[in-house]
């Protein structure tokens, strides 16, 4: 059976397989393989059986099937699922009890015929870039289980990378789709801020929170993104603009003007990350570098706004239930709640200035390329990264190159790039991907996806589902 979402939907439509058969195979795969990766926090088998049976009944009745009919998927543990308590990667939110309705994105997936298999691991409250969750355990990178999957949507990226499900949902406040997509070698989309409804998604920093998506190829990602689009008045940040489908236009030939982001995006990229950009740039015919001088200020503004909004969100609970919070982020949350108001206001003004500055670059280019992470996946537990001789904390440093972009709300598709000639960084080292960010002007997700598809077509970007790595797990983290 295919691992591609659209191929699965086609097989079900043609009668090659039933949705119930597809579900049974996906369940067997997850129950067998996820013990190694720790992607799933909970399964929703009963709901999945109902959704699969509904698709099979539609087909038996000769009715038209929706676009993702019978396609298995899973969601980050911050999407509401009717009747289940949304954990946001921890236990602090348990007092809220079961959700009364599906999140908007989950409702869209159900309407599109997709079959929900469960919830996925994450950094608690989405505050982190590593998915080293102290309560639930770290999600392991399918390409080397001793390494991190990235975060905060680490379970979402690793589940696609490991071939457990073809589609997953995540969220991105500062890079939480793009960082794990980069480290796990999958395609990820963070749309324009306000494009997708966040109704029923547990928040982190409201003015920066985006819903995003993961897939193993661009056609699947575009199809997934298209079913999630549409205005939603219940989310104050959701743009009241109609859906602008992208999947159909992907087949059209397009000549993209592509620029390479230098400056900040080179300074904080190691040799492997710079090489990934060079490979992608060559495939896209990009030769010109440009600098966005405001990138550092944008990253700093995002850091301060996130700290303050996240801290304020959790301050009341931190006062009474500090011990229940994730040890890796609770001190950061308290510190964020103490940030002076003047800093936050100045950060929000800086965002507008940075936004106006970066927009000028799109007069010359359709798409800008930058690395998604400063380096490939480090080992689980690694406290510091060495980037070009400068040491930075891993949990903050992994977002150095994604934060400036989400700070100003631009759409980004992350595409996986593998080392040239499949040469690892050192003899005997695992072959690890690094993602490149394909960045467009607001509301031009179609251009991000077109660039990603060109990388896919040229052979630079592809999902590589690893062989079962039991042997490599010997002696690794329990």
């Amino acid at each position, binding site marked *: 059976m295919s691992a591609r979402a659209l191929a699965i939907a086609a097989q079900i439509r043609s009668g090659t397989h039933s949705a119930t058969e597809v579900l049974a195979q996906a369940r067997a795969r997850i129950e067998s393989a996820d013990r190694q990766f720790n992607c799933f926090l909970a399964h929703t088998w009963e709901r999945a059986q109902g959704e699969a049976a509904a698709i099979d009944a539609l087909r038996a009745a000769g009715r038209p099937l929706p676009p993702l009919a019978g396609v298995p998927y899973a969601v980050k543990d911050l999407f509401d699922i009717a009747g289940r308590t949304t954990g946001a990667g921890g236990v602090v939110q348990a007092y809220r009890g079961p959700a009364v309705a599906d999140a908007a994105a989950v409702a869209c997936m159900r309407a599109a015929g997709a079959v929900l298999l469960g919830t996925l691991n994450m950094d608690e409250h989405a505050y982190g870039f590593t998915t080293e969750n102290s309560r639930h355990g770290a999600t392991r990178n399918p390409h080397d289980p001793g390494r991190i999957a990235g975060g905060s949507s680490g379970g979402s990226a690793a589940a696609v990378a490991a071939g457990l499900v073809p589609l997953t949902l995540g969220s991105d406040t500062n890079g939480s789709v793009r960082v794990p997509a980069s480290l796990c070698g999958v395609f990820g989309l963070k749309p324009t801020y306000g494009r997708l409804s966040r109704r029923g998604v547990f928040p982190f920093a409201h003015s920066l929170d985006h819903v995003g998506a993961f897939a193993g190829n661009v056609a699947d990602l575009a199809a997934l993104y298209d079913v999630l689009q549409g205005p939603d008045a219940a989310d104050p940040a959701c743009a009241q603009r109609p859906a602008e489908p992208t999947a159909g236009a992907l087949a059209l030939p397009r000549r993209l003007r592509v620029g390479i982001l230098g400056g900040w995006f080179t300074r904080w990229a190691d040799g492997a990350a710079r090489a990934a950009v060079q490979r992608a740039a060559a495939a896209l015919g990009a030769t010109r570098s440009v600098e966005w001088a405001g990138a550092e200020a944008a990253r700093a503004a995002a850091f301060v706004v996130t700290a303050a909004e996240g801290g304020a969100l959790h301050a009341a609970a931190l006062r009474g239930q500090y011990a229940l919070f994730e040890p890796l982020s609770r001190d950061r949350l*308290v510190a964020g709640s103490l940030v002076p108001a003047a800093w936050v206001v100045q950060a*929000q003004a800086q965002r*507008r200035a940075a936004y106006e500055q970066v927009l000028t670059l799109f007069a010359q280019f359709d798409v800008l390329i930058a690395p998604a992470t400063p380096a490939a996946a480090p080992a689980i537990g690694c406290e510091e990264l060495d980037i070009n001789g400068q040491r930075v904390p891993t949990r903050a440093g992994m977002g150095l190159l994604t934060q400036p972009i989400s700070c100003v709300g631009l759409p980004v598709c992350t595409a996986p790039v593998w080392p040239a000639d499949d040469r690892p960084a050192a003899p005997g080292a695992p072959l690890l991907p690094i993602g490149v960010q394909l960045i467009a002007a607001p509301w031009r997700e179609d251009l991000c996806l077109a660039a990603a598809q060109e990388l896919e077509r040229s052979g630079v970007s592809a999902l590589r589902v690893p062989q079962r790595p039991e042997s490599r797990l010997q002696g690794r983290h329990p």
Partner: protein
Amino acid sequence: MDIPRETLAAYVQAAAALQGYELDAAQTAAVTLQFARIAQIGAAFLQDPLPPQAEPLPVFRP
């Protein structure tokens, strides 16, 4: 912006008390470390005054 360590520690202690946190010495030290990191990163724009017309973004709409 180079904020002296003692100033940061005094600010964190006072602001945490104002907000009703009851932190022990180890927790206060850990929070101070994180606050110092925020201040250090924020310095990238906090010393870069924008014109008075630069309007903040209450809800960010690109």
